[in-house]
Structures are given as C-alpha cells and as structure tokens.
C-alpha cells in the first residue's frame, strides 16, 4: 500500500536517515522472511479478502466518523471530527494491526505469537486475534504498566493469553519490548513477534503503518462524503506512533492538510519527566531502528514519564522522525494535567470516555479550534476508549 509519489521506506527499510535493521544477527533472516511473506501477502487476493472480511465482520470496520458538534461549539471555531477507533473491537485501533499480523503469522506457519504491551491495548488486541485464529499467545508487560492497567491484564488472561511481567529497567513498555526481543531471539524459528507500533526493525514500521492506514483511508473518504473536502488539520497522539501514522499516511500527498502529532509532555518537557521524543530527543538507535530517541549525553536511553502508559516510551517510529525533519508533520507536547482536561472535556461534551492517549490530542484540538475560522475542519483520531483509565483518573481525584 503505497500512496502516490511516496515510496518510503527504501529497499533497505530506511526513511531518509531513519529506520533500518539494528538487531542481533540471529533475527536478521527472520526479518527477511517476514518481509518477503508480508510483501507476498499484499499481492495475495485470498489473504487480502480474508483480512477485509475480519476487519468488517469481526473488528467492526469501517469505524464511524463523528462530527463532535458539542465539542466544536464549546471550543468555538473549527469543526471537529472524531475518527472513532474507540468503537473498533477491543476498544482501540490496535486490532487493525493485530489481525493483519496474526493472519500473516498463520500464513507463515508460526503458531506461537509473542507481543509487548504498554497500556495493554495492543496486548488485548493480540490476545483477541490469537484466540480467534487459534494461535498461542504470550504478552510481555512491564510490572508498572500491569499495575496501572490492571483491567487489561485480566482481559488478556480471559482471552487465553499468558501475561508475563517484566521487572527490569523502568518496568514499562521499553523493557517489555526488550524482553519480547529476547524471547524472539530464542524462539525465532517457531515464533512470530507481533510488534504493536510503527517502531522496531524493518519491515515493522512499514507493515504496521500499512495495516493502520485503514484509519486514514476511511476517514479521508468519510470526510469527503460529509463535507465534500479534506480537513485543514489531522491530529493524533504519538507514542510509538501507530494511530497517528495510520491517520497521516493516506493524507501525506494531500499537502494542504496540516499533520500534527501530539506527544506526552508528562510533567512538562522542561521538567525532564516526559515522553516527548520528537520534541525533545535526538537521533539514536533503539529496538532495531534509527529514530529520534530520549537519551542522555552518553547514549543511554532515558526513563520516561507519562500519565498514559501507551505513550510512555522513549523512542518513536522512524517515519515520524522523517516527517519531522522534512517538515511534513509537526509535533508538540501536551502535559499530563492538560491531557486530563481533554479527557474530562470529551466525557462531558460528547458523552465519550476517551483513553488517556487520545485525550492528549483532544486537549490540543481544544486549543487549536478557537484559533481557526468556523469553516475550518479538524480531523482527530480518537484512538481508543477510556475504560482502562477510569481507575487512574478517579484515583487522581478526577
């Protein structure tokens, strides 16, 4: 799936200087195998028909595009549209990629699937796809994340997956990925690593982007039907960057559409306790790809902080790094407190409880809309629903 005039990554998996394959040698042939299986699946009509079938009848696609009239009126200014990925099966956009990769794993004859998860949404989506397709599923999750996203741990277990706690490092998403890679190095011949974001070694950033592009492709079409034109802004939150790239990618060649990625500003970028990789990082190598990275002056990866487990990651997808450098997309940070404001705003104006991740994007949009004309259009990806975050928000006196 390659948009007109855009053919990145190149043959070696690079987006400009970013991307590539910085992994232990043991995994290299598995990545080559995965890439060729993925490319073959794109030409395979049966595979594509099967994936479309499951996306439609199982995941509930296409998801709705909702004109948030109350939120728009409240903010004053632009018309705000929400792409309702929270309505997809399992409650987040993660199912799009999980179904695609789980089907691919089955085609490749790999019956064992491993995954990492931060907020637990990708873990739940993977456990779901594996249950439906009859695959064995093991999910690595940082102990800190297991605590703050307990309900998703229970969901994964109900779905028949094993959830293995990761106690090393910061005990969050970064460490869960380390542990998943160690498992894959050990069991590479029987196992597919179902990576949940547009990060990691080639072909993951490309493949996950392609599976998530259904978000932007649908939203683009739905908005053309509703408004007869494309949005002025497309906005989404960025952790690893899969929902944002899924939204942005089909709009890349529509150069009149401004693309804005919202990162987790934690306690404020100046506090040092945040996860705003593109805003405050510099290029480096983590988890198999060259990309922007939050690191100290010696090249050690920094621990991050965000109220939202799904954004609490020191790296970011290499294609986002490229979009930042080329200026095609802009990235900024929203703090924990502001995200909570966005969370409550959407709950009360629209009767939608968003996940804390897209609550970052909602807050930014609430600030952007009043600065725009009334006929301006903002398209926001509401990447997931907030049931998993209710305890966190209530615990903060919210």
């Amino acid at each position, binding site marked *: 799936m390659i948009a007109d005039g855009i053919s990145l990554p190149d043959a070696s998996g690079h987006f400009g200087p970013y991307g590539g394959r910085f992994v232990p*040698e043991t995994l290299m042939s598995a990545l080559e195998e995965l890439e060729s299986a993925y490319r073959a699946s794109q030409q395979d009509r049966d595979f594509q028909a099967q994936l479309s079938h499951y996306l439609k009848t199982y995941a509930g696609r296409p998801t709705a595009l909702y004109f948030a009239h109350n939120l728009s009126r409240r903010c004053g200014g632009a018309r705000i549209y929400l792409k309702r990925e929270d309505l997809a099966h399992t409650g987040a956009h993660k199912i799009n990629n999980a179904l695609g990769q789980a089907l691919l794993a089955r085609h490749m004859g790999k019956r064992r699937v491993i995954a990492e998860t931060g907020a637990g949404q990708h873990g739940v989506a993977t456990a779901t796809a594996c249950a439906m397709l009859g695959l064995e599923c093991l999910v690595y999750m940082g102990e800190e994340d297991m605590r703050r996203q307990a309900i998703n741990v229970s969901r994964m277990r109900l779905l028949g997956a094993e959830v293995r706690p990761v106690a090393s490092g910061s005990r969050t998403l970064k460490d869960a990925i380390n542990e998943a890679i160690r498992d894959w190095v050990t069991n590479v011949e029987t196992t597919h690593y179902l990576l949940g974001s547009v990060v990691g070694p080639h072909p993951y950033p490309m493949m996950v982007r392609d599976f998530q592009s259904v978000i932007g492709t649908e939203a683009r079409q739905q908005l053309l039907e509703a408004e007869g034109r494309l949005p002025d802004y497309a906005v989404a939150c960025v952790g690893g960057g899969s929902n944002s790239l899924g939204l942005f990618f089909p709009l890349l060649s529509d150069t009149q559409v401004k693309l804005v990625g919202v990162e987790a500003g934690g306690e404020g970028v100046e506090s040092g306790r945040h996860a705003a990789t593109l805003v405050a990082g510099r290029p480096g190598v983590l988890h198999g790809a060259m990309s922007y990275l939050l690191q100290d002056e010696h090249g*050690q990866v920094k621990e991050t902080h965000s109220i939202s487990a799904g954004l609490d990651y020191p790296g970011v997808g290499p294609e986002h790094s490229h979009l930042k450098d080329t200026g095609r997309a802009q990235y900024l940070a929203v703090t924990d407190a502001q995200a909570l404001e966005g969370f409550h705003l959407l709950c009360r104006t629209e009767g939608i409880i968003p996940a804390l991740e897209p609550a970052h994007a909602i807050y930014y949009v609430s600030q952007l809309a009043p600065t725009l004309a009334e006929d301006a259009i903002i398209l926001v990806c509401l990447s997931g629903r907030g049931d998993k975050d209710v305890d966190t928000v209530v615990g903060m006196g919210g």
Partner: protein
Amino acid sequence: MLPTPREAWYIHFYLWVAPKSRASAGITVDRLKSSFEAVHRRGATGIIPFLTVGFPSVGETLVLVSALVEGGADVIELGVPFSDPLADGPTIQRASFHALAQGVTLGTCLHVCQQLRSTGVETPLVLMGYYNPILSYGLERFALDARDAGVDGVIVADLPSEESGPLQSACRPHQIHLIPLLAPTSTDVRIARACEKAGGFVYCISLTGVTGVRQDLPPGIPALTQRVRKHTRLPLAMGFGISQRRHVEALAPWAEAAVVGSALIEVIEKTPAEKRPRAVREFVAGLGGVIPTHGRE
C-alpha cells in the same frame, strides 16, 4: 666486539626509530593476529573471557583484567554497559545495570583500556556492546580514541552487516577491527557478506538465544563453523552458553577460541571481593587447562 657505526645505526633504527614511526603512522602490531597465532602454536582452544567494565567497580575491572591475563586469557572482551541490552540474558543484564549505576560510560571503558595498556597489559582488548553509545560518542571520535587507548577490536551486538558501513569506515583507518557476529540462523549469503568485511576474528553465536550459562553445548556448532569457514580464513571464536572446561574441549575441533561471559560474571558475583582476583584467574586457567605460573597469592 663493538658494532661498526653502520651496524649501530641499523640497531638504533630497528629498535627505536622504526617502531615509533610505525606507531605514529598508525601501523601498529596486530595484537589479535599475534594472539591467535600463539593459540595455534599452542595447539589449544583460546580463551576469551568477557567482563563488563565497572562490574563490580572500575577499579576492580583493572585488577580483574590483570588476573585474567595471568590466568591465560588470549583475548579480553570488555563489555560496554547499555541501558537496553536486548541480546543479553539476566546475568550480563545485571552486570550492565550495575555498571551504569556506577556511572560507567563508553568514555570510562576507553579510559580503562588506556590504563591497562599503560600498566603493561599486551593481551588484545576488544570492546563489546550496543550501537547507540558509540553513535552518541561519535563514530570518528570513537575510532580515534579507541586506537589511542590501545583497543584492538569492537563487537556491536545490534549492528548487522547491512548497517555496519559507517562504523566500519570510521574504524578501518585506525586498525580497529569490527568483528562480525554470525548465528545459526545466518544464511550463506549473509555469512559471505559479513566475512567479506571481517577483521580480527569472526564471532560465532552457538545457539539461537541470548547470552547466559547453559548445561550443554548446543548441537548446531559444527554445522555453523563449517558454513562460516567456506567464506573466511580468519579464526573463529564461539560464544553464548559456554561456561565449563568440557565445553571448551568439545569446541576444539570447530573453533579457535571460546568466549566465556556470564559464567565469569557469576564467579565474580558469588566470590567475596578480596578473593575475586584469584577466583577469576583460576576459573580462566581451569577453562583452558593453562596452569598459572605467576601471581599466586
């Protein structure tokens, strides 16, 4: 009989001038080559112990490396700690996190090498770690400083041949070998490509997995070494899961050297500080069957 002036000039030139001008021109002795030649003459399997720099402390690293040399180490691998050591099992992860907590950086590791050289250690020193600290240090600056510190080679766990070009170009002019890693899953095409650029030796990974002690040697070793030897005449070192003398002996027909890391870290972990140099020396000596002839306590 006194030398004639002409003979005296030659003696002076070959003893003093030539070696220094060779060194200043960057043409130094290839310690790795000499060491593997010595291993070959001895007719035994070489021993390459691995220590994380700064585990348990930088000061102890200096002492322990000397103990390794006395124990008969043929090459010494010094681990550069990294926050996300994804090719390492729990033991080396622990050592790496401990070293980071001590404030160890790549700069510290280079300084340790320099100090070892200044105290007369002539055993080849190879740094092993991950790419990001090197990238952050600057590839050119790293190669230059590594040469000045007396480093002979570098092994980067997450830098396959496709991505190693920039570091390779930085290291080559300074005679720092970039030692490739090959695994049982490496295809023949990949093996050929890695061997084409290789220098020093080739590091063969004995199994599909992370570093760490295992009971038995994995079965794929003969097949991997036979495939690799079709593409290189460089010596082969076998690592991952090698912890005992019987492993080293079983490797003899297949590899020139054995890398022992996690087992050595575990020896250090379970030995009280004052007994560590001796424990480490005897452990390494015991692996290769070399009896230490000096430095006994």
